[in-house]
């Protein structure tokens, strides 16, 4: 008998239909992966099980958990079940914990809410729960505060809270999306172990096919609030029927066609760059310390090349990007674009700057919401000595928008009228408008759904071929880097630890850190083109 049985679940919020006839089941000890892109209704399905739906939501159908239909339970009965019968792990470990409570208290709190036990006993059980998520008390005392832990450790605390009462069902909504790959691999292993030990069911929600494919026993693929296909993993990968599932799989492994061959002349040269930050001083009279974010980094990008820069958060990728863009001065070393320094006499060199542009990660935060598209994309004109006026300006706007697959009429719209993928196209148009030689892509596709990501990668490859662009592709996602780059740099703690052609790095990594990164990257099961 299954633990969770969802039958014909329909959900509407303010008369707007979100879910249509969703059915799935989770058995004890089973891991069910729910996969879908944004807006597919995967998170709403999870919230419907927890009955934590937003105001104005109406659910019909049956959601049977442990023999009871949660849609028909009162709020008081649900409170008794949440945390005790069903637990939940959220995406963002930074906001899921109360910053002013110790981790021991937070885990004990869950126990005290549900069971009449003494505070001492609750703490004892919190200690056990934290030990089970591999935060042993001798190294992580219960008196620690969340800010004293790393992102991965915080997520472990969140998991400890969810499993403290040994729930029958655990729901994990994108539990590793905010984490680095090596941390992600550890958290996934932990979840798997807990499922085995407790025999609980795990409903794991993710946008990343590879993450779920690795660990789920059963897959459910959702789109527009409907289940399009489901079946046991990994067999499902071999006999996918629905065109959407196939498209999703194809997009996840999409390889854009690239024709251009890099030339031998170097475009960007980075030599021995060091960037130090002053850290907070200790006491009023203490000396401020320094933190070396970028430590003696040297590399070259050839004209027409696509160079990948990979590393985990905090490795110095972003600092290096800012230095290359001339936004911050470096303490030592030089950055030359076509032989010209990016910084001359403590001032950024405008002649060099106008030859580089950047595309950022967040398609929602990269635009001033109060300006129209034409004003947004023409911002880099500020770098030109004689910016085009009148008809020439109109032509430039139209050309930039059309080259990224939008229409010239889109110039009059505001940014909120566009979807995430379209916004990223506008960001590329903004970068292209002054016809730069080098475009830095700072996690430019990380926030996009896989199918949109595939389109943007195709667009970038096409633009690279047509306009002879050089890319510096910065990402934490190794599978994307593999698809689009010629050479790869691996960065760890401010240093480049390995560099080589993409094929060499991925097939024969030399540095232990590179090997560790590759081993941690979730992979889709091998499937031949049958």
């Amino acid at each position: 008998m299954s633990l969770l049985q969802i039958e014909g679940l329909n959900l509407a919020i303010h008369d707007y239909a979100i879910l249509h006839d969703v059915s799935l089941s989770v058995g004890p000890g089973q891991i069910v992966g729910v996969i879908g892109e944004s807006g597919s209704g995967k998170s709403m399905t999870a919230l419907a099980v927890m009955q934590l739906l937003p105001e104005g939501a109406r659910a019909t159908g049956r959601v049977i958990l442990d023999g009871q239909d949660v849609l028909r339970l009162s709020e008081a009965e649900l409170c008794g079940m949440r945390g005790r019968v069903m637990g939940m792990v959220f995406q963002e470990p930074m906001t899921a914990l109360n910053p002013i409570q110790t981790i021991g208290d937070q885990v004990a709190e869950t126990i005290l809410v549900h069971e009449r036990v003494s505070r001492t006993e609750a703490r004892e059980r919190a200690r056990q729960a934290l030990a089970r998520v591999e935060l042993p008390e001798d190294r992580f005392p219960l008196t620690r505060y969340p800010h004293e832990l790393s992102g991965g450790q915080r997520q472990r605390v969140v998991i400890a809270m969810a499993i403290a009462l040994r729930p029958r069902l655990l729901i994990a909504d994108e539990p590793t999306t905010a984490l680095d790959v090596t941390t992600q691999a550890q958290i996934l292993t932990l979840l798997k172990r807990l499922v085995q030990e407790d025999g609980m069911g795990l409903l794991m929600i993710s946008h990343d096919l590879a993450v779920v494919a690795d660990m789920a026993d059963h897959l459910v693929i959702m789109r527009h609030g409907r289940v399009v296909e489901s079946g046991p993993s990994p067999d499902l990968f071999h006999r996918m029927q629905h065109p959407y599932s196939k498209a999703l799989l194809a997009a996840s492994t999409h390889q854009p066609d690239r024709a251009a061959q890099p030339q031998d002349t170097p475009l960007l040269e980075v030599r021995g760059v060091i960037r130090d930050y002053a850290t907070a001083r200790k006491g009023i009279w203490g000396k401020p310390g320094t933190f070396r974010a970028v430590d003696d980094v040297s590399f070259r990008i050839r004209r027409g090349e696509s160079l990948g820069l990979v590393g985990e958060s905090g490795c110095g990728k972003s600092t290096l990007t800012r230095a290359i863009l001339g936004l911050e001065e470096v303490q030592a070393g030089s950055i030359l674009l076509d032989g010209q320094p990016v910084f001359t006499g403590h001032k950024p060199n405008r002649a060099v700057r106008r030859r580089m542009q950047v595309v950022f990660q967040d398609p929602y935060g990269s635009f001033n919401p109060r300006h129209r598209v034409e004003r947004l994309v023409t911002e880099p004109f500020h770098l030109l000595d004689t910016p085009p006026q009148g008809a020439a300006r109109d032509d430039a706007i139209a050309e930039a928008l059309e080259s990224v697959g939008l229409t010239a009429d889109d110039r009059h719209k505001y940014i909120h009228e566009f979807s995430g993928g379209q916004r990223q196209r506008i960001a590329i148009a903004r970068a292209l408008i002054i016809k730069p030689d080098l475009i830095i892509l700072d996690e430019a596709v990380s926030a996009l759904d896989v199918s949109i990501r595939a389109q943007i990668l195709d667009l970038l490859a096409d633009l690279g071929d047509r306009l002879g662009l050089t890319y510096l592709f910065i990402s934490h996602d190794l599978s994307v880097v593999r698809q689009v780059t010629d050479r790869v740099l691996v960065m760890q703690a401010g240093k480049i630890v390995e560099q080589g052609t993409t094929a060499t790095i991925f097939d024969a990594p030399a540095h232990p850190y590179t090997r560790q990164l590759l081993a941690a990257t979730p992979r889709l099961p091998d499937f031949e083109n049958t």
Partner: protein
Amino acid sequence: MNGGGLMRAALTNRSLVIGLVLSLVFVGAALISFVWVPQDVTALDIANKIKPPSAAHPLGTDHFGRDILSMIMVGARTSIAVAVVAVVIGMGLGVPLGLAAAARRGSLLDEVIMRGNDLVFAFPSLLIAIMITAVFGPSALNAIIAIGIFNIPVFARLTRGAALSLWTRDYVLAARVAGKGAVRISAEHILPNVTNLLIVQGTIQFSLGILAEAALSYVGLGAQPPIPSWGRMLADSQTMISFAPHMAIFPGMAILLTVLGLNLMGDGLRDLFDPRIRRDRR
């Protein structure tokens, strides 16, 4: 959101509508008083002094026989003028200071501006206002300056706080990549995105300005006779409160309702501008 949606959201926001109506009543009264008042407020009519409300004098008369309704209408002029100019002074100086502090965060300039603000904050505002009027003589103008000075740190802090978070946005980074300097970025990207906050704070400071003006006039340091002022009307009535309560009640109500209206309007505007709150209230 398009203009029509914003308009509809504004009309369904109860505190905004009530606040707007109350505020407009007093602004309207002040404007009408320029062209017409029921009775001349400088004309004394001792024969009819301290009369309770009647058909001739809807809100009664004061101890000189002046019509209280007319006094309140003309007094609204003083209150509103003082508060408006004080808010303009506070915004005009405070917002640029806040923008500058945020643009050069962590620098000496930032420290100087913010510690200067702390200095002004450290003094009780009404005491300083009394000091200024004591030195330069009581007048509406000195009241304006005194109240205005205390608005500067309020706006400077608010602007700096909001601007700091905007400076970390990617679109600001994109503007820097486009070679734009701090002044340009502040004007093009930071200021338009803090305007909402400033409007909300502006209405609240406006109501505080009216209260402050009333308090200064009450102690005789605001607008001088014969210019009517709500605060002085209260002061004049206090010895007669036992047998002529209408003399205190009506000016008091005027102050209360104006301040209430402006605060409700500020609350409503904040809800309107903040889409998260708007969605929750639906």
